[in-house]
């Protein structure tokens, strides 16, 4: 009985915190918040003992509760955190209310380029062009300006070409939890990189490394 009501309390507090936040909050963010009150002692201090796993479990339960209640509001996992957002069903009216225009959509070449970057990151321009069979010179600046893509380092190939990866804004734009949330990421990342592969066998070797979120700078290879 006691445990159930504690769970209930935790869920309500989490809902309140995520609701008030102005950005997606991760379980880690929330744990840090709870721990920041530890020194105050008293009732607040008890919250500092909650683990990230307990917080995540409660958030997930809250997400399920919201969905079951069909409130028109969802607790969504986006870009590594939780946030409240409207049910897409009401999107038309929310847009009208906010006076927002329907945003232009990305073009096919832009989407394809983005797909190659997302699945294969970090990648060079040559890697992308090897897949698309055509130059991406006009697309990359557009994606960079929209901050969907960023330079994550430089390759060790001759000329040290730049390596591109996706950004948090990319995850938000497509409503993705993290990069592994992309369907079929295992398979698409694993198809060997032709051409580029020949030049950097070690980089292409562990396929899972390519599927990970962009690193700041690639490890220099010997």
């Amino acid at each position, binding site marked *: 009985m006691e445990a159930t009501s504690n769970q209930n309390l935790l869920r309500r507090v989490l809902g309140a915190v995520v609701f008030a936040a102005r950005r997606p909050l991760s379980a880690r963010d929330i744990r840090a918040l709870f721990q920041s009150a530890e020194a105050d002692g008293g009732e607040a201090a008890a919250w500092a003992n909650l683990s990230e796993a307990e917080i995540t479990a409660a958030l997930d339960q809250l997400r399920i509760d919201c969905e079951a209640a069909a409130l028109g509001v969802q607790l969504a996992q986006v870009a590594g955190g939780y946030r409240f957002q409207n049910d*897409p069903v009401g*999107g038309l009216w929310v847009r009208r209310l906010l006076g927002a225009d329907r945003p232009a*959509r990305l073009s096919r070449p832009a989407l394809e380029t983005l797909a190659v970057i*997302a699945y294969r990151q970090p990648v060079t321009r040559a890697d992308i062009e090897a897949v698309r069979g055509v*130059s991406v010179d006009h697309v990359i600046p557009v994606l960079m300006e929209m901050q969907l893509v960023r330079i994550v380092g430089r390759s060790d190939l001759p000329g040290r070409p730049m390596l591109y990866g996706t950004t948090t804004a990319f995850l*938000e734009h497509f409503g993705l939890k993290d990069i592994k949330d992309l369907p079929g990421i295992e398979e698409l990342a694993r198809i060997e990189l032709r051409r580029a592969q020949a030049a950097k066998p070690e980089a292409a070797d562990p396929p899972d490394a390519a599927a990970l979120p962009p690193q700041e700078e690639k490890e220099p290879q010997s």
Partner: protein
Amino acid sequence: MVQDECRVQLEVFEGPLDLLLYLIRKEEVDIYDIPIERITTQYMEYLGLMRMLDLNIAGEFIVMAATLMMIKSRMLLPEEDRPALEPEEEDPRWDLVRRLVEYKKFKEAAEHLLQREILQENVFPHGGEPTAPSVEPDPSLALENISLFDLLAAFNQALKRIQTEDLTEIFAEQFTVADKIEEILLRARGGRPLAFSSLFREAATRHEIVCTFLALLELVRLRQVTVRQEADFGDITIWSAERAPV
């Protein structure tokens, strides 16, 4: 072919792999067993159309044409006479097939991203500002569920219809792309869809068809009209931009 008054600078952002995948789909052939002769002929036909229209196409199109020709000639050789470039590469088509299959997977991934993007258009986060970065219309043609090659195919049909009547060209009046832009806008203004074929029904000459088609591409690029195709390889309709269904 295209006279000066018809000149429109149109950049093509599709590449040769897009054209090949389009032809494979259209001809309903097996990607792992491409009838290279047939596909090469078609590829050259579309390349010819794009050149006739003076579209700015990537140099990669020419490289691919050469590749196709080479594969075709190697296929003609008896198997034992083929140059043994790489031992495991017995079928001269193999490298191309691999590229096509890989690219096709990414096209599907891009399609999935598009579906997510459409869903996210209707999602607004609580608390924060709208997070979606404003999308700059990039310079490519605003084609949604239709490819440039679908348009070229329809254009080709219109051309073929007129081919036998070429003689009338001498008497026909000359049109400019600008004239045709006005005409299309006027006809699409009612908000009702305009059938692609109806644009060319009264066209008397190749020149007129070319001008009309270039006018259409220009209007699409300027986002004044949108072009739709309800079924795969089905009829194409033209909608004035502000009236197009979502």
